[in-house]
């Protein structure tokens, strides 16, 4: 049914009238004060959560001289990407970046596959000693030998100063296994049974039925695992004492943040840094900001799209209690 423009406008006006008047009559002054304060406090806190990232960002893309004078506070000026390209000259940073990316991808992939497989296996009643082995595995969540014994253990295994210390100890993650197991238990058993009747082996059932059906939970643990790997910093600090080429990006950032203001000497090792502009770009504050930004960007880019999975993750955890 077509409506004329006039009718539409009338309708809108009517709605607006109703809306405003409803409010007016329903809201008491106390309510208004409450609403205002409530919105204000949440608004301010949200600002406190966003603004630092924004401030960091505008200071890395603005004109370096202005940044050093401290005039860039709210609005970026003299936008350029020179700081980011200058970072490419710093060899220890690019290697740290690669290490972080490699451990995030490899570590997460192995952890997810292992969790899925273990989660599936421990639902199989017929396994020899199932209950015992499941407890053997899950109970490790609640005790910890302590940082020094664990360190000595890694040393004994020859894993210190080795990339594999980032990956191997994290493959079996008891908490994630519980999540996957709980999820797999909710998949109707008939699916498996009918496949078994058709002659499918356990591995086939796992690949063709369990894996595809448990993708939501696997996505959730993958995201948490990836964030954990990307943010991980103390393992680099503890285990890589004589392998600086295997430092993670977070560890590098920590080192840079603690460095005295002049980092030019460090840059020299990175190769040809002759350009005066690049040199000034790499001075203290700006390089710290830029590396911070490089480290935080992956999280900021990924988070809004995957927020749903993050929230599902915490709820699954809550169900388990």
């Amino acid at each position, binding site marked *: 049914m077509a409506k004329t423009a006039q009718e539409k406008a009338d309708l809108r006006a009517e709605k607006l009238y109703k809306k405003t008047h409803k409010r007016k009559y329903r809201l008491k002054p106390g309510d208004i004060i409450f609403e205002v304060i409530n919105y204000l406090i949440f608004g301010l806190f949200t600002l406190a*959560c966003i603004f630092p990232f924004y401030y960091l960002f505008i200071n890395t893309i603005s004109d370096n001289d202005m940044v*050093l004078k401290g005039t860039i506070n709210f609005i970026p000026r003299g936008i350029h990407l020179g700081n980011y390209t200058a970072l490419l000259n710093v060899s220890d940073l690019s290697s740290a970046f690669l290490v972080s990316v490699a451990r995030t991808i490899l570590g997460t992939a192995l952890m997810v596959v292992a969790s899925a497989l273990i989660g599936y296996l421990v639902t199989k009643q017929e396994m020899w000693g199932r209950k015992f082995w499941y407890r053997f595995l899950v109970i490790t969540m609640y005790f910890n030998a302590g*940082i020094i014994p664990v360190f*000595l253990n890694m040393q004994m295994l020859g894993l210190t100063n080795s990339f594999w210390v980032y990956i191997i100890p994290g493959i079996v993650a008891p908490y994630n296994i519980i999540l996957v197991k709980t999820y797999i238990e909710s998949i109707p058993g008939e699916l498996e049974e009918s496949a078994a009747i058709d002659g499918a082996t356990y591995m086939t059932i796992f690949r063709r039925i369990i894996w595809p059906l448990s993708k939501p939970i696997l996505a959730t643990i993958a995201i948490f695992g990836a964030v954990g790997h990307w943010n991980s910093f103390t393992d680099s600090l503890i285990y890589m004492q004589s392998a600086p080429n295997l430092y993670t990006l977070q560890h590098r950032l*920590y080192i840079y943040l603690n460095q005295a203001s002049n980092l030019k000497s460090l840059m020299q090792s990175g190769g040809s840094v002759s350009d005066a502009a690049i040199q000034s770009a790499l001075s203290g504050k700006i390089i710290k900001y830029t590396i911070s930004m490089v480290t935080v960007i992956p*999280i900021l880019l990924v*988070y809004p799209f995957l*927020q749903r999975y*993050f929230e599902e993750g915490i709820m699954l955890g809550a169900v388990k209690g």
Partner: protein
Amino acid sequence: MDKSKTAREQASDKLYYLVRIAILLSVVFLFVPALNPSRICGLINKNLSLFTSGIAYNTLTADFGRAFKKGWVLKSSMQILYASSLAICLGIAANAASGCMSLGNIKFKKLGNLIAVIGSIVELAGMAGIYVAYGQVALTEKPKKVEPMFPGSFWFVAVIFALILITTIIQIVLLAKSEKEEKFEMETRFKLFLMFLPFIALVAVFSYLPLWGWRYAFFDYKVGDTLSMEKFVGLKWFKELIKNPATVRDIVNVLKNTLAMSGIGIATSWLPMAFAIFLCEMKNMKFRRFVQTFTTVPNFISWVLVYAIAFCIFSTDGFLSSFLVNLGVWDEGKNLLMDGSHTWLKMWAWGTWKGIGWSAIIYIAAISGIDQQLYEAATVDGAGRFQKMWNITVPSLIPTFFVLLLMAVANILSNGMDQYLVFKNSTNTTSIMVLDLYVYELGIGKGSIPLTTVVSMLKSIISVVLLFGANGISKLIRGESII
């Protein structure tokens, strides 16, 4: 099938337990440096396991540069050693495979026995090779530099290999013949178990094996030493913890910080709940979603990045300083991070900034699960906004709150070290030092291994006790366990 087992088969089954244990042992000492039979001279790194010496020739001979150049040690003898170690590694792998196969049917067992025989012969040949290499190294011109030594575990390892060989041969004799058309088969329960086995091994190595490191608490140990019974000191380090005035002072201070910061956290653990309740009072869904999204972001950045944020806002040339200087409020920038006052509160504030949005999600979900009719009924009865919050929302959130509170109490000693490590500086050292950070600095930084092992040990035990205590309370009050 069980009933029809002959005496022969039963003997065979029992013998298999022995073989499996022997194989398990050989796998274990493949990775334990202290039991490395290939350490035939002092030049070989003490922390080298048999596995590494059989895999990486360069690591094995890392300290031999001079010895090779001066001709103290022949390259060929080290190559023999390397080849022998490699042979042993392969042999042990073969044995491990045969151990798994012994869980299958007779045809599987037969193949497994064959592999085990070959494997243990290869192992024994490897041991002979190590013996030869030792004979050559022992003839060196410079025994003081090369320090030839007969590996202490040599005979022990050799005996185990021989044991595997002999028992396997007995097994071959004992085993009944399989029918020709029989296929390789294994009972489902063992098949599943074998799929699970690698993960059990990982857990054993990375979660249970470290407990073996607690023995350092009873020895005088410095980094790089070997443990020997002469260095056994009993409870010396435990006493040191109570008696040495300097250590006691440190520990008391550290505990004070740890408990204070955990205490502040626990005292304010209702904040996320309040956050969720007030957030849900907002009618504008878009704004609510916006707030929720952006307040959860800080939870997913590392503590190093939180420090980077703190740096860009509060340091001398950070946002706050430059903003206030530009306004003329301050004459010059101040580095607020280098201010050592109110450290506990500041740490709490950073923790809250990072975590509150995320912690609130669980409460938000709980609130959306509350029956709306309760609110409607309350409205009809004339309840105001705060009355509804206090009498409907809060009581329905209390169970969740209670669980989280108990978990927080159980974790009272573990506040992690990341946060305190990154925020630590010369002005706030005394008030920021928490237990985890203290252990890290003393153990890894200063190499005081036994003392920190004692602290780690006590902390682990107390944490487990607290956890089970909390669980007990939960069972008592709610009839539900939290772990």
